[in-house]
């Protein structure tokens, strides 16, 4: 992939400055998913497997359209179906294409201890570098969307790359190419946000969806994948999309105050013991006599 275009602005587990920090491309990229025009055809799933050369996995049949319960380490893009009965008794068949959300403040990256295993490019894409991955799985704990999945054989973690290889060559992600209804769009975050808001307004004004809105959760600094939902007040209905996702506060406590306190305590303890030795010395100065011990 072209490293000239994909400058890095955030690196996991990295001491010191980040090469692409503070540089800014003209725009960050964004995928817009309009759940109101998705028909659940799964063309995006197939395109993802085709482009990324992922194998066909075993499916699970449970009398619904749902082929498997969640994404897998080698299945990055899955439509989640939900038959939702509304208050007035009418049925809505909700479907949401689930994949990595490419958070502006990624929990996976914050939790990762390995230098360079997770990076965020200046265009906003969050990408796993398996060569630097140590297989600890902390990213699984850091992610509020349950996206990173571990290959149990190699202990390496995988997820959607937003087709970094395609995007760096100026192409759209594979899923976008395949969508027959045009519910998937790709472009700059600003453009996608504009388009999404326009569509949400249309749904509110003309289609009797008064709660229609855009899902771009501020808890993770906004996401590189945004949704238009019929009912933005109940994102959970769409395959458990969290209402207010954020990096788990235990992870924040660990990487913030605890790290700071721990470092101060460890360095302070070492200094304290050294000062004690200089001031008071050993309890007895002389090496104790070794009478009686045969050489």
């Amino acid at each position, binding site marked *: 992939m072209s490293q000239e275009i994909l400058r890095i602005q955030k690196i996991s587990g990295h*001491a010191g400055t980040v090469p692409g920090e503070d540089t800014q491309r003209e725009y960050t990229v964004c995928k817009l998913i309009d759940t109101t025009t998705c028909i659940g055809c799964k063309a995006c799933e197939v395109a993802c497997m085709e482009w990324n050369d992922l194998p066909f996995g075993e499916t699970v049949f449970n009398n619904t359209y749902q082929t498997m319960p969640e994404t897998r380490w080698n299945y990055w893009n899955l439509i989640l179906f939900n038959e939702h009965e509304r208050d007035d008794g009418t049925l809505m068949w909700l479907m949401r294409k689930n994949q990595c959300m490419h958070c502006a403040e990624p929990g996976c990256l914050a939790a990762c201890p390995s230098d360079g295993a997770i990076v965020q490019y200046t265009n906003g894409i969050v990408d796993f570098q398996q060569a630097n991955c140590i297989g600890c799985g902390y990213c699984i704990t850091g992610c509020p969307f349950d996206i990173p999945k571990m290959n149990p054989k190699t202990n390496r973690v995988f997820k959607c790359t937003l087709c970094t290889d395609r995007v760096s060559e100026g192409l759209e992600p594979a899923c976008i190419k395949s969508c027959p209804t045009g519910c998937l769009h790709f472009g700059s975050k600003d453009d996608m946000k504009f388009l999404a808001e326009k569509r949400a307004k249309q749904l509110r004004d003309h289609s009797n969806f008064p709660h229609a809105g855009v899902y771009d959760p501020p808890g993770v600094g906004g996401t590189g994948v945004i949704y238009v939902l019929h009912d933005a007040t109940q994102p959970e209905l769409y395959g458990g999309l969290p209402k207010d996702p954020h990096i788990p506060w235990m992870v924040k406590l660990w990487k913030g105050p605890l790290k700071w306190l721990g470092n101060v305590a*460890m360095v302070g303890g070492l200094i304290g013991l050294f000062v004690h030795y200089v001031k008071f010395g050993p309890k007895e100065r002389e090496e104790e006599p070794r009478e009686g011990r045969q050489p």
Partner: protein
Amino acid sequence: MTRVDQAVPPGRILRYNFSERITHWVAAISYIYLMLTGLAFWSPWLFWIAVILGGAPVSRMLHPWIGLIFVGAVTLMYGMWAPQMKSTDTDRQWWKSIGNYVQNQDDKMPPAGRYNAGQKLLFWSFFLAGLVLLLTGLVLWLPEYIPWSLRWLRYLAVFLHPVAALMTIANFLIHIYMSVFAERGALDSMIHGDVSEHFVERYHPGWYREIARGSSTPRK
């Protein structure tokens, strides 16, 4: 026929028998590995430690297994030493004059037994931290098997594991300082097993009296 304990040179007292010493060193060496690799995962500024120890993936792979060895050794130590680590009235007096202990005025301390109150606290602190490290470590070992509905377990583990580890590091620093630098003869006792009578009389007068009375063998 009773088993003959290790032969000790005249004028010296057996403080740790062979199995105590070996168990201690299994725990010590595994702990140092765990601490170093743990520190590497704690801060990016210490990540180089994992590189030196064979690479970060290797460190991540071995850390939990060495952890099991450490837990095994700690369990044995619990069996050997826990009965001797009960707090006594003398221990409560000991804590009241901790200031004297810190200033190396050991003659002003209440007579400590085979272990003084500080050593007892160190033992329990290591033991409890070890227990927390084991439980949280198991969660951290296989995070992908913790279902999404139980993710709070992972959140708890990811926070409490370093908290308990920091506790052991505080213990470790004090333990190394006391045994290697402050109390001459202590490190030697964990290697060869024996200490001088003077050492026992000075640091563990209660135990010394018991031995003199014959109510306690140096090593039961």
